[in-house]
């Protein structure tokens, strides 16, 4: 319960940081307007759902949010621009959902597998894949997931497809979130 509370505060802080409300009194403190409160409680209850579902999952796989195609947690890939390691804004909800899951499930562990497209240098791409996985790790860490829950690995371009165009290349520039029990 204490953890849930802490998490709610963290989430509120994060969401507040994302909202564009002016900060008046204490710039460093989270600012919560009614909308944000709404989101906060929604997220908090989702997080609790996640936690309880995970508990239920020990008995049967049916309700596993990680496998539920309707749950954002079933989405496991974050895509990057060429030669870039910044996590794009469009992946914030995905990163936050997984961070939340990790916070709610302290025993859950993930491997963040960094990849690059097959152009350029294999060694540079190995390093780039590593930076991508670390970028995702930092984003998840900031949201409260513990270091011991997250491992990073890079495959560089070694798992990349035999691509010739951007539509194909972009699928390879990604970090895959792989849970221990996947």
């Amino acid at each position, binding site marked *: 319960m204490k953890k849930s509370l802490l998490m709610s505060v963290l989430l509120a802080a994060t969401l507040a940081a994302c909202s564009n409300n002016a900060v008046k009194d204490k710039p460093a403190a989270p600012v919560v307007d009614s909308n944000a409160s709404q989101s906060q409680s929604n997220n908090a209850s989702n997080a609790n759902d996640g936690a309880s579902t995970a508990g239920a999952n020990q008995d049967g796989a049916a309700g596993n949010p990680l496998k539920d195609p309707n749950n954002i947690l079933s989405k496991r890939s974050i895509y990057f621009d060429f*030669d870039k390691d910044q996590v794009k804004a469009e992946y914030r909800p995905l990163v936050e959902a997984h961070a939340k899951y990790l916070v709610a499930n302290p025993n859950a562990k993930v491997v963040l597998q960094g990849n690059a497209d*097959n*152009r*350029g*240098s*294999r*060694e*540079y791409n*190995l*390093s*780039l894949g*590593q*930076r991508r996985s*670390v970028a995702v790790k930092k984003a998840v860490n900031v949201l409260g997931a513990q270091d011991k829950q997250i491992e*990073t*690995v*890079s*495959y*560089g371009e*070694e798992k990349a497809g*035999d691509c*010739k165009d951007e539509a194909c290349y972009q699928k390879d520039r990604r970090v895959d979130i792989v849970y221990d029990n996947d």
Partner: protein
Amino acid sequence: MFKNRLFFIFLLLLPIVGRAELTVEVVGGAAQQIPIAIVPFAAPNANSVIQQDNITNVIGADLRMSGLFRVLETRGVATQPHTISEVKYSDWTAIQAQALTIGTVEALPGNRLKVSFRLLDVLKQNQLLAMEFNITQSQQRATAHRIADMIYEKLTGEKGVFATRITYVNKENGRYSLQVADADGFNAQTVVSSKEPLISPSWSPDGTKLAYVSFEKKKPIIFVQSLVSGQRIVLANFKGNNSAPAWSPDGTKLAIVLTYSANSQIYVINADGTGLQQVSFSNGIDTEPEWSPDGSSIYFTSNRGGGPQIYRMPATGGDAKRITFEGSYNVSPHVSTDGKLLTFIKQTPAGFKVAVQDLATGQVQTLSDTTQDESPSFAPNGRMILYATSVGGKGSLAAVSVDGRVKQRLKDSGGDVREPSWGSAMN
């Protein structure tokens, strides 16, 4: 120790197996090719010695492959000399030969061969070279490469590279194997094989060992393996990635890349895995270290300034100086043995291409006509650059001369070939 040993037994002490070989195809050639005639060496006991590895054919193929020679058809020539007294120079000036190679192959007791050859200057009508070899049957190709090297050096003034070896990774049926082959692609042998990727093989300066990166433990680890005994040691298995090994010119140390602190940084480690020392310190990616031939500097790829560019720093660490400025993506540096040229992969509007930069003037030339190039390395004589590319969706090897005129394709019948590196002379 015990763990290493287990590895060795289960994964790697595979017998050295021959496999599908590379064949070399040459496109283009030097502006001035030397016309040379090679008369098939006399073989008194032909049925016992010369089969498909005909020494004369190998010499001819080597010289032709270099792009610097035009190997003339000799079958129609009236005289077929094997000794100097049999040479009628007018027959060779008639087909416009400038140089003539003749020789004999004789069977010796104990299943050995005596190979003798002479190189003659057709215009001056004198002898340039004469040499005799006492060899075993299995040394025929190697001897032919040595003869080709001698002819090449005598007529071009540069050292030949026919008696050298290359290494590369072949991916076939979901398996990766690190291969070592003669420079003409023959005698391919498997050094190590794994179902996880193998990358970045690096020759020890004496050609007896290979350092390479293996993902067999699901993360990159650096091994050093003896090509003589097949035994290997784990050079680096630290937290995070261990990759990009490069031998120092004296063979005592390697520059490697570790990601300890999340970012790839360059370290130097003794060849036995002791004495690890960090030499690059940046907030970006520092990778692909490559020693200058005198061992004083390390060239490397870094994106500290935004996109990846090539830098140089003292081998002991310190201030890095940016070396490449043209374009936004320059990676995979390799320095010629005379220290004067740098080859690397440059992103151009037409794709990723092998480029060469004169380190004194900074002038850059893009050399290849392929578009997905990787891993360039100089031949020991600095004339050709071997690299990986993609042809018809399949990884293959190619080479280009530093002036861009001679282009070779190394064709492999089987798998996807990548990560080549040109080594020193055969042992």
